[in-house]
């Protein structure tokens, strides 16, 4: 019985309990994301715009006055975590917003236009999907150099957004094509709606659900990507706090000394945010497609 592969529980997804473990996970994830967003908004009120270094207290472990330790400039890790939340949320969220909006627009045009517009779009997407995104980002961001100061956050956000519209474009295109000649669209055509109105009023609202679900995964991916870039030293540079860049300081390049508090705390924040976003996306997806196995 235990190994019976054909055994499919009837109450397949959610149990009848009002508050299942899965929903508990969702609530926790939402709370974590909300908390990090609050940190992002109010963090700079608490610690100022940049964490100032206390040169007398460099590389201290989490003892004494600095609860979470200090880095090699003597800046407090806790302060930097707060400030890093802002960059993570701004870059992750902003780039997701830009990418998704571009994707919706391009996908809608491709889906509605069809024909050669669609072909060109698909070819372009093919080209862009062929190059690993990290490499593309490295090329663009490294060529900006290490300058830019705080504007770098915005530059990174825009670049990552603009380079990341393919997934949502693909989704919207597929949905628009699927819905294009169904009854809701036919009804709109009958009422004399032009292409834009058909899209805005009828097709897009129906096509947006998978995009919104996907946005949560996209944001998780972008937060990871920013952390990786900053870790490599091409993303955000020192005056701007970033979790990935803090992580890079955990292993001292010259002495090989390991400062665990610089790995565990910022890395843990990245993990928390990414995990929560993925969990939210997962939950939304299972709500959206209850019977789709994916």
């Amino acid at each position, binding site marked *: 019985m235990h190994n019976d*592969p054909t055994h*499919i529980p009837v109450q397949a997804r959610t149990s009848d309990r009002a508050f299942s473990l899965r929903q508990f996970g969702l609530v926790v994830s939402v709370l974590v994301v909300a908390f990090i967003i609050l940190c992002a908004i109010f963090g700079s009120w608490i610690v100022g715009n940049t964490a100032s270094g206390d040169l007398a207290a460099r590389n201290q472990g989490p003892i004494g006055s600095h609860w979470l330790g200090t880095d090699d400039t003597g800046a407090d890790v806790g302060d930097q975590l707060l400030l890093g939340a802002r960059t993570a949320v701004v870059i992750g969220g902003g780039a997701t917003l830009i990418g998704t909006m571009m994707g919706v627009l391009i996908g809608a045009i491709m889906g509605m236009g069809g024909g050669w517009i669609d072909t060109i779009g698909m*070819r372009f997407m*093919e*080209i862009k999907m*062929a190059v690993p995104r990290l*490499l593309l980002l490295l090329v663009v961001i490294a060529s900006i150099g290490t300058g830019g100061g705080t504007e770098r956050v915005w530059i990174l956000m825009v670049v990552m957004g603009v380079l990341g519209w393919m997934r949502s474009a693909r989704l919207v295109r597929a949905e628009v094509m699927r819905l294009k000649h169904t009854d809701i669209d036919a009804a709109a055509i009958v009422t004399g709606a032009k292409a834009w109105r058909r899209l805005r009023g009828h097709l897009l609202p129906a096509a947006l659900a998978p995009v919104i679900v996907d946005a949560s995964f996209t944001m998780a991916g972008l937060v990871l990507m920013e952390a990786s870039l900053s870790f*490599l030293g091409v993303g955000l540079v020192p005056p701007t706090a970033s979790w990935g860049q803090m*992580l890079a300081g955990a292993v001292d390049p010259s002495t090989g000394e390991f400062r665990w508090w610089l790995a565990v705390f910022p890395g843990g924040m*990245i993990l928390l945010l990414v995990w929560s976003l993925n969990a939210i996306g997962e939950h939304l997806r299972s709500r959206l497609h209850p019977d789709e196995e994916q």
Partner: protein
Amino acid sequence: MIVYVIKRVCATLIALWGVTVLVFALMWWSPGLAGTLGEGELDLVSQEHASSQRSQTDEGILHGYLGWWERSLREETDATVWTEHEGLRMVMRCEQAGGIEVIEDSEKHWHRFERSDHPASSTWLFGDAAKLRRMSAEAKADAADFGVDAGTNCVEVRGIVGEIVDDAVKAYEFRMRPAREGVWRWRVTMGRSLATHRPVIDEIAGHAGPTLLLGTLAIIAVHLLAIPCGVVMGARRNGAMDRSLNWLLLLLWSFPVVLGGTLMMGYLTEGGLGVQWFPTGGLQNTASADLSRWETARHVFLPVTCLTYGSLAYVARQTRSAVARNVTAGFVKTARAKGCSERRILWRHLLPNGLLPMIAVSAVLLPWLLAGSVIVEKMFAINGLGMLAYRAVQNRDLDLIMALALFSAAVCVVVNLAADLLTKWADPRVRL
């Protein structure tokens, strides 16, 4: 079928051409164009090289792009070059392979140029210390006299005259102009690297080993771990096992590689805080015979783990849904009616059927692995393609970046094509 393959190959070629255009345009229009590093970040010769890559800037992007193609497909070979300075005349033949032969020398001072031992720099050192000092003073004055003639068919011998001061080589640059045009020949070189002056294709070939090793091991590991997970999950959907594995896989998927790698560095390697099981890195070259198999395995274990764990979730999920789709299929009933054990049904009937769509899934992993290798190789100091890409980007090494982008795109596209054909071969019902 053949028509399909031809069509796909054409589409592939167009896509790859598109990649070159896209990456070139991105680099061209990015604020810091290739080769705009500050002084001191590259050695003198590299700066000259950079400016030769950049010299087409004024001519516009089309010229630059065509110049890249030219550099990629042709290389200059032995050229005769000369220099004349204050009555001093020297003619020599410069071989692209790295040798220089003096043909005529008005003072008969120098008869041989030797390449310095360090393969990464093409500095040329004179043998005789006394003359060396004399030459260096002249060469320094010389350097200002010659402009750079790049973009045309000339070869310039750029060199460094060195003198040894306190065990350090103090170097001065000199340049010589060609007396006649260099001989061009067709060869796919993909241009020359800024940092090492070697043909890019040799650079890539020289660094591919470790990345290939890591990638292959990672792909094998992903499948060995993820497919059993997926089968177990798919067999009893929403069972306790499915849910807990799902939870674990989501955690692994969300676990940043930079954190995972750093923690491994900190707690599992020599010099770290925890157990000292693994070396900190430095897998330079798989071809090096001085590493025994055991040592190689120790070097490779952590990087492969880093590359592997994130992809587990994806492959396991695809397996899960492939298995779950077939759970109610007719052939399962047949097998059960024949009296197969449940275990046999699961592993011998359901799994092989579920594996078919997995071919395409595995092909998707490649770009992830290539991207992941940049981070992992940087972290574990492995001198592979990822490290090469990282350094290329840091140096804004136009030719190298273009070649690496093209290379990774080609790998992905070709593997995708192969996966489709393989699926078709394995399951004739699939329509391409």
